[in-house]
């Protein structure tokens, strides 16, 4: 039982986000909003083409939390997210997600800071997540 996972410990995950990732996300969730699946619509927005769902990047955050937990030898999962989508993920972008333990909240809960950047270093997500260790 991980009573005290060290604050400052990190989890990281890097993934290239493909068209199939975005299309599958649309089908799994039911979010077929045009900017994600309709290239002609998306081209006329400020993004200039299709972008991944913000909620998809929450999945990347979850993956990074899972890696942090695995790295510490603990079993658990994220139970809360408070994230802002500060930049788009374009198809083909490579996104690096980093989570860092900031604070033990008690009862196996940990608050982590979250940041995602693309291959050019542009911030695409920032915020916090809370992980529950079982």
């Amino acid at each position, binding site marked *: 039982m991980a009573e005290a996972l060290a604050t400052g410990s990190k989890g990281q995950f890097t993934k290239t986000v493909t068209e199939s990732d975005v299309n599958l996300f649309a089908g799994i969730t039911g979010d077929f*909003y045009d900017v994600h699946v309709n290239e002609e619509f998306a081209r006329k927005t400020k993004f200039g083409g299709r972008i991944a769902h913000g909620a998809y990047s929450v999945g990347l955050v979850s993956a990074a939390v899972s890696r942090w937990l695995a790295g510490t030898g603990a079993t658990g999962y994220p139970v809360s*997210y408070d994230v802002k989508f500060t930049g788009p993920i374009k198809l083909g972008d490579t996104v690096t997600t980093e989570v860092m333990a900031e604070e033990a909240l008690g009862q196996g809960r940990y608050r982590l800071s979250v940041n995602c950047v693309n291959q050019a270093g542009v911030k695409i997500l920032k915020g916090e997540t809370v992980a529950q260790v079982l």
Partner: protein
Amino acid sequence: MEERAQRMEVLPMGHREQHTKTITQADVANFLTISGDLNPLYLNQVAAQQAGEPGMVVPSALLVGIVSAVMAKMTAHVPPPGGVSYRYALTALKSVLPGETVTATLEVIGKDVLRHEIYFDATCYTANGEKVMTGQTTLKVL
């Protein structure tokens, strides 16, 4: 009135939308594949039971995705170029298992015309009425 502020008027205070989906094991497997999540609580029945869960659980991030589908319904009302989700502040209250049917609901609770933002209360329920996720979301009108 500014053109963008005008387009924000299509979503009046109190406007509600919802989306219901049975979350299958295949949904979870596909979600883990596209997000790169290897958490044993999502993909290892034995590990999940040893940790005290009834079985493999649905990632809370997938429930965020169901909320995202309701954001899509809201955003679809906004004339082109539409909008994008800007902030999700969502907390899971209870484990959801594959096979459960989840309804996500959103209600417009506020707006900031200068920031071009619309704020929503978000709630997810299972078919038996149990609340499994709650929080708030923000849409930015483009």
